[in-house]
């Protein structure tokens, strides 16, 4: 992202106001609370980081031409199941899943004004 790009003042203010309006939404509050609860628990964050590290490691091995054995695959799926069923993480993910249609609805307002898909250009 180009951090040096200077936005017109009105656009800068409108973007900030829009962000603040999003934050006032109940679904955003619910997600931010669920995310904070997940991040506040050291065991929960460690579990998620362990899955990310294992995923990166196995992906690197596959990209290097290695075929993963049954033990490695089982270890990955076991850990992923633990993450998916961890109450704080599943609550956070569920809150985000509830929030996404609200954000998509708002993005479609911008896209309709522009006649192009805002999300495709902004990511």
């Amino acid at each position, binding site marked *: *992202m*180009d*951090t040096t*790009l200077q*936005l*017109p003042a*009105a*656009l*800068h203010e*409108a*973007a*900030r*106001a*829009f*962000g*603040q*309006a*999003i*934050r*006032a*939404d*109940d*679904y*955003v*509050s*619910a*997600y*931010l609370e669920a995310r904070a609860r997940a991040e506040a628990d050291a065991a929960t964050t460690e579990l998620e980081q362990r899955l990310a590290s294992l995923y990166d490691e196995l992906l690197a091995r596959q990209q290097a031409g290695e075929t993963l054995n049954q033990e490695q695959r089982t270890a990955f799926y076991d850990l992923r199941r633990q993450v998916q069923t961890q109450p704080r993480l599943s609550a956070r993910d569920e809150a*985000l899943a*509830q*929030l*996404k*249609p*609200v*954000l*998509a*609805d*708002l*993005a479609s*307002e*911008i*896209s*309709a*004004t*522009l*006649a*192009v898909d*805002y*999300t*495709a*250009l*902004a*990511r």
Partner: protein
Amino acid sequence: MDMPIIPILTTTANQEAARQAARSVGNLLRQTPTYTAFLGLLEAVNADPAVQQLAAQMRTHQAALQMGRDPDQHAVALASVEAEVAALPVVQEYRQAEAATRRLFQVVDALISQEAGVAFAENAQRSGCGCGG
């Protein structure tokens, strides 16, 4: 907090305010010279006879590849036509305008996300239908 199961079907006062704020952002983005130039070049590319002719050739090669007819020959021909399209001045200008528009939108999105506390565009993208087939 009691919330409806299907959020998209309900509109709270906050959500309506957010919709209006979204439209304001869209309107102001639309007025920027960067976006105006991008849209103009998009239209110019779509109307360009050379682009249209080459696009028709690309579709022919793509269809042949999908049907598995002389795949090596059509793959080479397709890459050649794609390179020809990319080299057209109007397409190069369009790509530059598109890149500038992306930079603008990304800066705006970072600001929105920072205030919202959640990555906006990343989480606002509608997923595919996932219908299988």
